[in-house]
């Protein structure tokens, strides 16, 4: 039996593929460490093992009544657009589905420092990730990024950049979800403060906005629409949110251009 987190495999037949990936631009990929490896499964030619990994369970609450839906939609959008957010899954609980945000390491990393100088360092260390996150947060109307990012700064051989917590975006920008959808479908940038405003590169931001703008409508809709009511989020709300986000992604460059002085990207 393998020790947890001990095994990394290089499949030499895939090497050519891996080299191709490395030669081009790529996002830093983090690995989720295993909490425990259990029994070997008897089926499957790949000889799989059952295992457990660390996660944080999140529910709907008074302050964020659509939290589970928000987190799941934000994750789907981020995965579709290749934005570096912490992975997660829906988990069955007695209270219905909850959102399990997977921890990037068995021992927590600190949240990104709230000081300006440190944020600047992170933006320099992770220029594409920080630009991607700004574009994404404007898309989903997340004005609460604050320090909700797990990032390594001092460990040169381990690169981790993962944003988390989307409880105050999408249907929870303000109290009434209909108002949230209205704001998303308007030229309101919503995000008034972001840790990477005034620190990110203009070229990187433009590249990410362009990527988001050309994303097919259907992909965005599929991220929002679950095909049935989900907790307190009705199908109608899901469709309305999808419409708003499709509109918003198509107009993202214009929305950003109007408030470019606030974002103040570096040339």
């Amino acid at each position, binding site marked *: 039996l393998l020790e947890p987190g001990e095994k990394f495999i290089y499949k030499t*037949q895939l090497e050519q593929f891996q080299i191709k990936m490395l030669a081009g631009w790529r996002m830093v990929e983090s690995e989720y460490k295993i909490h425990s490896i259990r029994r070997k499964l008897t089926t499957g030619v790949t000889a799989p093992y059952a295992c457990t990994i660390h996660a944080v369970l999140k529910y709907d609450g008074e302050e964020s009544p659509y939290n589970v839906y928000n987190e799941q939609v934000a994750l789907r959008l981020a995965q579709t657009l290749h934005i570096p957010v912490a992975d997660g899954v829906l988990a069955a609980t007695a209270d219905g589905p909850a959102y399990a945000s997977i921890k990037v390491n068995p*021992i927590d*990393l*600190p949240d990104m*420092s709230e*000081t300006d100088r440190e944020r600047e360092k992170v933006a320099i260390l992770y220029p594409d990730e920080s630009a991607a996150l700004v574009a994404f947060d404007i898309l989903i109307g997340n004005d609460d990024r604050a320090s909700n990012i797990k990032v390594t700064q001092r460990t040169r*051989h381990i690169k981790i950049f993962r944003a988390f917590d989307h409880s105050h975006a999408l249907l929870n920008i303000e109290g009434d979800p209909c108002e949230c959808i209205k704001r998303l479908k308007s030229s309101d940038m919503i995000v008034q403060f972001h840790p990477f405003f005034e620190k990110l590169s203009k070229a990187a931001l433009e590249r990410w906005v362009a990527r988001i703008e050309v994303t097919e409508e259907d992909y965005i809709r599929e991220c929002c629409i679950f095909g049935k009511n989900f907790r307190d989020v009705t199908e109608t709300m899901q469709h309305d949110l999808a419409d708003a986000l499709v509109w918003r992604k198509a107009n993202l460059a214009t929305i950003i251009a109007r408030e470019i002085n606030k974002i103040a990207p570096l040339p």
Partner: protein
Amino acid sequence: MRLEYYLIQYIDDPLRNEGRNIGVMAHDGSCAYFRALGDSDNPDEVDLSYFEAMTEKTRQNGWVYREWLNWFDTLAKNEGRYPDRLSRVLGKLEAQGANFVARYGGVLDVDDEIIPEAMVNELFHTLVGKPVRKAQSKFTACLEQLLANTDIKTRPDYDWDVEVEFFDKSGKLSSSVRLPHILKDKPRTVFKIVRFRTNNQSFIRQVNDAIFTFQEVQKNGFADKGRCVVLTEPYPADKSSYLDRLAAVAQIVDVTAKDAAAHLLSIVNAAG
């Protein structure tokens, strides 16, 4: 002068919530001061060994400690002027269920003539001290020192405890080998450790494993012989034949030798 302080603790298992003292954060109303186990003015020189010696989890994740020390240090330097903000940020750690928390210690009335740094040092030695580390063998200490001196562990292509699987033309797994250390970028350098000063059975197993590993690595074009490295120690005369067998497939580096770092760097930096 009033010095308010917090005890910084590491919690291995948030369910048990048992903290181990690792540092002290204190403020005098206008500045904050931070001291922790293994700290250093240079973040790259933080001594992780005290933290790594605590539990199995910390042994495998020692690097996280450096990130936290940097975080606390930055917090002290930037928020130290604002005690309320400092207290709020420290308080959040416990609420988040983090592995590192700050627990309120109390207030000390300190003579104005005593400089705060000295008082914090005294607090640190009283509350944290230096925990006992498991004594390292000379070989382990030399090996760690060698990897540190040659900056191998901080190279971006460095990895450890790697398993490499080789496949035949039909895609079937033909063999797999384990490497305690590797530099992944081409031309790759791969390492095995062979301890001569151990019992005979274990020694022969190590030698056979190293020879098999290097043969497979070279046969599959993963690394050249010039970049297959045996990290070892001075060998007894009766085992010299084993050294010859190892030398036939790899470069031998005695980690206890004075010129070990230069020798290792000459291998790692050799043109591909």
